């Protein structure tokens, strides 16, 4: 099966799983007693964060490989994974404050996890601004790879922030009742499949752009 067919299969899986996940979120999972309906944001907020971290790890690996092997195909892969990771971290940073405003009465609290997640988002913003406004292809790719490598070191900090410094809004451990747990796992699979489909599509676009550029340069 070639990449196009894999991408199509993953898109079909992502659509089916997201349909099932949304049905379970709104009609199967019970409403949480203390926070009410807003807790349902959890089912996409947490999988989005995990997908973002995994994709940032991949962007880190491809950036290291690009600097090491000097092969532009790794740069295309790093760019694709970083872009989809940025999308999911943006989802986390938008849904978090909406949930927080309802549950804790505040849109934003300067606590370790939120602050480190914002720093991560800002570092990735720098990555894309660099890609967008710099004209020197090879130098831009190299600096972008270094930015992606440095930015990844913030991921463990975001994850461990609660353990290291505590948090006034994030619990250390979440206990879910069976229906909530099942819904969470289906949502997790749905977001993972969507992240995979988006990354493969973005990679295909990147490869096509690379080929077009190569054709323009060659006589």
């Amino acid at each position: 099966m070639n990449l196009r067919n894999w991408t199509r299969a993953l898109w079909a899986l992502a659509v089916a799983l997201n349909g099932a996940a949304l049905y379970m979120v709104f009609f199967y999972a019970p409403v949480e007693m203390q926070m009410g309906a807003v807790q349902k944001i959890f089912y996409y907020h947490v999988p989005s964060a995990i997908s973002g971290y995994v994709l940032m790890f991949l962007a880190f690996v491809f950036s290291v490989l690009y600097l090491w092997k000097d092969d532009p195909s790794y740069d295309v892969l790093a760019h694709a994974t970083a872009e989809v990771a940025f999308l999911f971290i943006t989802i986390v940073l938008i849904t978090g404050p909406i949930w927080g405003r309802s549950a804790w009465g505040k849109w934003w609290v300067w606590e370790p996890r939120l602050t480190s997640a914002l720093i991560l988002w800002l570092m990735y913003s720098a990555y894309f601004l660099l890609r967008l406004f710099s004209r020197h292809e090879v130098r831009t790719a190299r600096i972008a790879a270094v930015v992606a490598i440095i930015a990844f070191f913030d991921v463990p900090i975001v994850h461990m922030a609660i353990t290291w410094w505590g948090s006034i809004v994030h619990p250390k451990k979440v206990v879910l009742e069976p229906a909530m747990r099942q819904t969470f796992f289906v949502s997790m699979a749905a977001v993972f499949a969507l992240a995979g489909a988006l990354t493969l599509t973005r990679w295909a676009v990147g490869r096509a752009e690379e080929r077009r550029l190569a054709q323009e340069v060659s006589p």
Partner: protein
Amino acid sequence: MTAALALLQEVTFKTPDTTGYARAGYLAIGALLVGYTLFLWFKARKTDHS
């Protein structure tokens, strides 16, 4: 546009219980995911045709 934004605010943040905030959250998630998917789709079409 103003009327659409007012309606959006009415069904999200002005809803008395927390349902409105859940709606706002899922609308934001949907807008970002669908928006980015469409962006990729147009970009792929543009690349294919050039």
